[in-house]
């Protein structure tokens, strides 16, 4: 059973982020990390390798050349090899274009499970995994708090409105996992050294049999404007008051806004 974990390099949480003049995320001088939610997908894949359910873990990323650093960091946690898809025509790719490219790469890698994080830190649509599943015509098992694979079937434990369900589908599948799979492991020094010797390939669009025209300028959407959020009035503070008086002030505040 072979797993491909799709990971995305993103600006560090809390980094000073901004848009460039052409309304794309400015990545210059911003510390880049593995999307934190993808680390849970890595951890889930490595657990399946540890318990013998998986016999191969490959990482796949699409991004600029520096995204190879994210792949090296993943390889330091464990796993076997990695593929970076990088191409100038992919700059500014939207969710549809990203899914198109990942689907083509997964067609080539043909894993039993394509595993992804539930969302990325820098864009919050969470549509790429489902779009990839639809493009490859394989089942989608999403938002798993846990992923199990046995006898040609994958299952995820997913929160329901009133509890949780185990949702299953025959392999191959696209699956996504949440932060409930367990804390991602740290890379050991030995792991970091070993990662340097693990194979990493770089593919262009042409290697996937895709052209820039297939991706329609890398996006079906266009950002027409960015602006700061509406100015909020400064925070009002209630301090050093006995509880009953503080409560009365809060209630007045709520009443003024017709919230009670």
């Amino acid at each position, binding site marked *: 059973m072979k797993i491909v974990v799709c990971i995305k390099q993103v600006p560090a949480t809390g980094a000073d982020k901004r848009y460039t003049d052409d309304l794309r995320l400015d990545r210059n001088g911003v510390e880049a990390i593995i999307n934190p939610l993808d680390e849970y997908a890595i951890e889930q894949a490595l657990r399946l390798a540890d318990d013998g359910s998986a016999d191969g873990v490959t990482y796949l990323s699409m991004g600029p050349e520096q995204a190879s650093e994210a792949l090296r960091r993943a390889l330091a946690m464990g796993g076997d090899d990695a593929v970076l898809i990088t191409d100038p025509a992919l700059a500014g790719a939207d969710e549809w274009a990203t899914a198109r490219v990942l689907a083509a790469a997964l067609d080539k890698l043909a894993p039993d499970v394509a595993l992804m994080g539930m*969302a990325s830190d820098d864009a919050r649509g969470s549509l790429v995994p489902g779009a990839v599943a639809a493009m490859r015509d394989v089942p989608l098992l999403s938002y798993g708090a846990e992923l199990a694979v046995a006898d040609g079937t994958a299952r995820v434990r997913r929160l329901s409105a009133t509890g949780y369900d185990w949702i299953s589908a025959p392999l191959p599948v696209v699956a996504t996992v949440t932060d409930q799979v367990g804390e991602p492991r740290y890379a050991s020094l030995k792991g970091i050294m070993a990662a340097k010797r693990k194979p990493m390939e770089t593919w262009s669009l042409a290697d996937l049999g895709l052209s820039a025209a297939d991706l329609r300028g890398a996006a079906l959407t266009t950002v027409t404007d960015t602006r700061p959020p509406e100015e909020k009035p400064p925070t009002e503070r209630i301090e050093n008051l006995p509880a009953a008086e503080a409560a009365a002030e809060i209630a007045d505040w709520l009443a003024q806004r017709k919230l009670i």
Partner: protein
Amino acid sequence: MSNDILFLAEFSGGKPARSALELATGAAELASQSGGAAVALAYGSGAAAGAAALGAHGATRAIVLGDEDRPAITYAPAAVAASRDAGLAVLAPATPNGRDLAAALVGTLDLPAFGPVRAARVVEGTLETEQATLQGRVITTARPADGAPTPSIVLVLANTFAPAEGGSGSAEVSEAPAAAESALARASVAESHEADAKVVNLEEASIIVAGGRGVGSEEGFGPLRDLASALGGAVGASRAAADAGWIPYQLQIGQTGKVVKPALYIGAGVSGAIQHRVGMQTAEHVIAINKDPDAPIGEFADLFVVGDLFQIIPALTDEIRRRKGS
């Protein structure tokens, strides 16, 4: 191509989700701008019987994709058949089920995707959306690229549209067109487990009282529940509180929990870490109650009450009950 605005209308246990009512009204608003009709794509148990009543909230027509409780993604083939060349936009709730179906539409029909948005409109025949990006520091306006296929897929945050009430209209109901074979239909529920405690759907609450690490224990949520009940709201939590097992994960707000947009959010003992903030930053009013005068939540709350939540919250509950005369 028509100028219709479609929307996903989820049903379960015989009833429409609140998102279905909100999106019915939102779709009607956009349809009035585009010169089309608001069309429901209704799925889940109760959809067949309940679809017509979406007319009271703004839907002109309703297409029933299916009427069983099964994984939402398995309705993708029917949703695809009903959406193909079917209008200007499909509105989907920004929930796990809504995202799964939206993604299937994007991937199967090669459609532009937006969101989660906090506003949407049709300007001179073109869809325009507004989204908070970079952790709320930037508001981005986006449109379909020139010549992009339709319909556009739009993930919509809860409470972006207020459901119109008091309408008496009835939507014209039809069955979904025949769907193509798809592997997406192969997911099924293998086992179902009920949680120990009954949990509410936080995305539907207009008032939320959320507890964080400062609540300290499972019992510590008692006073928060009392306040929520006095306000007619629901209790939520930060990840720290859910991880500690004080409250079910269904009630977790944040990056990996629910994304909520209530009229009022009260955070008690919640520090306001960025991962929590992205789940509630679009709340209309934010009150924070925290012992730590330097807690990050103080930077973005509208009202910051510095003090002991175990004294202030019961006092506030009493005060509200007194004013409501109950």
